[in-house]
């Protein structure tokens, strides 16, 4: 086992132990805090696939996070109100079952990412950042001005979606679901990274000219990575909506996109457990500093500055050293 794996396993063990201890002590608030960590980590695992492995600095991943959230909100509200979402060619009433909601969140996010990636990936560098931002802003303003689902007021989820065999109103059950999905996403990330697809994706970041010269066109590889990345972040969005029992355009905002990038950088760009470290650190900073001062983001900024200047590999990089690709 490498040092990086050991550190990563320690982190996920802490993340698991935290709510269990909180539950034993009768402090449900801390369970919610841990759930927030797990969901944000999941969203960042998605972004890490594009940003960390592929070097695709998407400043629009809030779009997928928000789409996942709205998919959950819309399906649930229709199921709750007994109104069909559409009635032709068949009647679809929405759903209040998590697995169904997840499936739709993943599919709709991926479908949105396909044209968005196909257009954005024709550019690179700053232009890529700006185009992904522009797409996300379009969706943000669309959500703001769509009165059917709350517009700028957002859409409440009156009753949390159900999961077979679990009571999702229990914070610990919800944590278990989010944590389980995070573990699956980490496994998917690790397997993809080590596969042929991952090799091509990593090479496309390091030297796209070289990749093309051996006969592998970078564009389809990047597009696939972007779509898979969006699907994972979209799934996290659906969980986030269920956690807060509320969806609003703020999930689609550029601040959210920035927050996801911050999570990845804090934890360690391209590192398997980077998003977990980043999300745990971020939520802790938000909670601890946020309790002391209103200006906690100023201190977050300082920490980020420190990471970018002195610890390029993020938290995982500091603890485990440089990446070695076999």
């Amino acid at each position, binding site marked *: 086992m490498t040092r990086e794996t050991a550190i990563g396993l320690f982190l996920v063990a802490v993340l698991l132990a935290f709510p269990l201890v909180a539950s034993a002590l009768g402090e449900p608030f801390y369970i919610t805090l841990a759930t927030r960590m797990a969901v944000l980590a999941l969203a960042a695992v998605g972004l890490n696939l594009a940003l960390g492995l592929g070097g695709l600095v998407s400043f629009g991943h809030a779009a997928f996070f928000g789409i996942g959230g709205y998919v959950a909100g819309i399906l649930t509200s229709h199921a709750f109100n007994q109104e069909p979402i559409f009635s032709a060619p068949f009647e679809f009433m929405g759903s209040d079952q998590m697995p169904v909601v997840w499936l739709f969140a993943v599919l709709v996010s991926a479908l949105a990412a396909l044209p968005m990636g196909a257009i954005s990936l024709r550019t690179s560098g700053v232009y890529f950042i700006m185009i992904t931002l522009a797409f996300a802003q379009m969706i943000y303003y669309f959500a703001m001005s769509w009165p059917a689902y709350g517009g700028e007021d957002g859409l409440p989820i009156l009753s949390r979606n159900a999961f077979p065999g679990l009571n999702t109103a229990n914070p610990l059950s919800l944590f278990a679901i989010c944590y389980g999905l995070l573990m699956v996403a980490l496994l998917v990330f690790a397997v993809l990274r080590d596969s*042929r*697809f991952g090799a091509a994706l*990593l090479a496309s970041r390091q030297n796209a000219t070289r990749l093309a*010269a051996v006969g592998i066109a970078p564009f389809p590889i990047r597009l696939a990575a972007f779509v898979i990345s969006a699907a994972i972040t979209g799934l996290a969005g659906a969980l986030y909506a269920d956690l807060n029992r509320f969806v609003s355009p703020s999930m689609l905002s550029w601040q959210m996109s920035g927050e996801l990038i911050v999570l990845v950088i804090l934890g360690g760009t391209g590192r398997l457990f980077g998003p977990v470290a980043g999300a745990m650190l971020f939520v802790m900073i938000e909670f601890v500093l946020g309790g002391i001062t209103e200006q906690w983001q100023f201190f977050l900024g300082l920490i980020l500055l420190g990471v970018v200047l002195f610890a390029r590999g993020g938290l995982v990089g500091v603890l485990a050293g440089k*990446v070695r*690709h*076999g």
Partner: protein
Amino acid sequence: MAEPVLSIRDLRKTFGALKATDGVSIDLMPGEIHALIGPNGAGKSTLIHQIAGSIRPDSGSIRFLGQDVGALGVAGRARMGLGRSFQISSLALEFSALRNVMLAVQSRQGSSFRFLKDVLRDRSLTEPAMAALERAGVAARAHVPAAELSHGERRQLEIAIALALGPKAFLLDEPMAGMGPEGSRTLTGFLDGLRQEAPILLVEHDMDAVFALADRISVLVYGRIIASGTVDEIRSHPEVRRAYLGEAA
């Protein structure tokens, strides 16, 4: 006479007023090393880029293995079997030498849309890659990141990657560049044997290597081929002596 492996006809490319490629026609025959020489700024790199597919010519045709490849991009031509090495080493610097070569093996074996198997445990990738490194003489450095290789080792790695593609033709852009005399001699001997595997279109400034290796030489000056022939013919060609060798030799 056999069919040419690579056949370029009346290729033209202008950048503004500059005629970088001005009606170039070149054939690469099976089993030969065809050297392309010319002074700096003659348009050698532009020509190589057009053959590799990274620059689109204004007119003219490029046929590879009897097929017009004008519509194919860099990756498509490489998949057909055009093995290229770069004038300035172009590698995935974070990857080890072995993983750089494994990319070529992976490409040769087909789709990169395989998501499950761990490449480092896939012997169908590692073994051919290791063999290519051995042939190029850098097997001892297989697990060293490309960023930590010396200049000469990077040149050898470029060759190993081209070998691993199992190409039908090599397009080598100054493979000797920056190598010491010892390294150049070794590489010359190596390329000499390589022509049996696939013909080589060789752009090279090292005249000793060119004269030792080339079956034919074409001289490019201001985007035009001013002479084409055997080593002896080129050596004694008056226009070539004036335009090029006069200042180099």
